[in-house]
């Protein structure tokens, strides 16, 4: 199943974004050719998070020993400690499915079926709302959100068993002069939802 793990704007030029889905840490980065990579957030060599690494535009370079992994294939291309030796071809990081749609970055731990967020037509311009992290299980939050009319399309990203993120989009996007007002409105709305849930769950 597809879940949103980030917003498009979380992947600016040469950034590496630290995400988490169902307990699995992910490193998400956009190469200069536009391709979005979603990998296990761990260098194969010594286990350092790749989200603290460097996005060179074509490769992700680990911060610890400079191992480089290629855009798209996640294959290790260079091990600086042994510069004269090509890394064995079998060294490749674990890749997760990725889709970019409606201003959100989507992924899945299993091979997913269909298109993500398919309730909307691709052509619609969307306004992506700020992700609201909630310290409560996704099921609880989904249940609470189902009971209110928001006017936004809302997805819940299950971060792990005790945490989730409310990711909303407004489609079509409001006119530019009222976008800031819309963002404020939804920020208040979903923050209040979060506060209620955390208070009830005793996790605030």
């Amino acid at each position: 199943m597809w879940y949103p793990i980030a917003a498009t704007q979380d992947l600016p030029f040469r950034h590496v974004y630290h995400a988490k889905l169902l307990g699995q840490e992910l490193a998400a980065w956009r190469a200069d050719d536009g391709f979005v990579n979603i990998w296990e957030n761990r260098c194969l060599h010594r286990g350092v998070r790749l989200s603290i690494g460097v996005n060179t535009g074509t490769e992700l370079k680990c911060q610890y020993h400079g191992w480089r992994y290629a855009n798209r294939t996640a294959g290790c291309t260079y091990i600086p400690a042994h510069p004269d030796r090509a890394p064995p071809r079998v060294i490749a990081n674990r890749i997760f499915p990725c889709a970019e749609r409606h201003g959100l970055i989507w992924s899945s731990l299993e091979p997913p079926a269909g298109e993500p967020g398919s309730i909307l037509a691709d052509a619609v311009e969307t306004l992506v709302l700020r992700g609201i992290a909630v310290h409560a299980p996704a099921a609880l939050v989904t249940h609470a959100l189902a009971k209110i009319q928001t006017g936004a399309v809302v997805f819940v990203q299950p971060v792990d068993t005790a945490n989730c993120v409310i990711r909303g989009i407004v489609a079509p996007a409001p006119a530019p002069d009222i976008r800031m007002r819309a963002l404020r409105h939804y920020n208040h709305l979903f923050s209040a939802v979060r506060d209620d849930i955390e208070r009830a769950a005793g996790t605030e």
Partner: protein
Amino acid sequence: MPIAANLWIMTSSIYHDPASANLWHPIAACAELRDGEVGRTTLLDEATAYRIGADGTASVWRSDAEGAKGGLPCRIQYGYIWTCLGDPPADLFEIVEYAEPDRRNMNAISIGVHSSAPRAIENFLDMGHFPFVHKGILGAEPHTEVKDYDVEISVERDEVLATRCRFFQPQSSAAANQGAEVDYIYRIPHPYCAVLYKTSAIDASRRDVIAIFAQPMEQERTRAHLLLSILDEHSDDSTLRRFQQTVFGQDKPILENQFPRRLPLDPRAELPIRADKASIAYRRWLARKGVTYGVIPVAA
């Protein structure tokens, strides 16, 4: 098994592997303790307290909120208070250079790290990260190659030794004023301690000694104590400390972003390369000694 160790294992509410409990562990730098002041810290999940008396001798005891619960063996060595929760060995490993009269001996830093003690030790043994983590100080691209070196696990001395380690360093110490290929010897005489001998920038025939004494507070929480025993007549104490603090301050975020936090001893758990010979030997040695604190043991 000696009676003392038996008693301890029966009365303690917390489990440690005997391999870790029966070791001397550093818990504080003497220079950081004011006269008569009681310090408190955690060792292997247990609350301990310590002080240095007017006569210069240390005392260490198990403590909790109610206060004293019983004395522990202790000793002062290399400027630190060491204690043991089980049955301590007669001696601590030797660093003979420490006694040389022209050495500058000091604790450079005692700093908390949210990782296991073995991860901190392995990082200390690693040359491959110098150009990336200590860029411009202990290494610089394109000088990234880790040249072949020798490693042995000495049965007689019960330690891991890595020799003939060479690496190009832009600024190998506070006293260095230019880049140089530096010679290293690494010695691991204790599961949570490592000693580095590196070419002195002042006298090429002698070696600076830098040691890391890792205090395993919890399985995944460590205090790293860094000992300097070096040749440098000119730099003041704060310059020498700042150099080591800068270097360790660069390692700390790496260690805290390394997962799992406990060191996996199964050789297939991570992906070692030839440059990691020292780390491979260290992991094997820990497994052979039966150390389980701060590590993920090899599955039976």
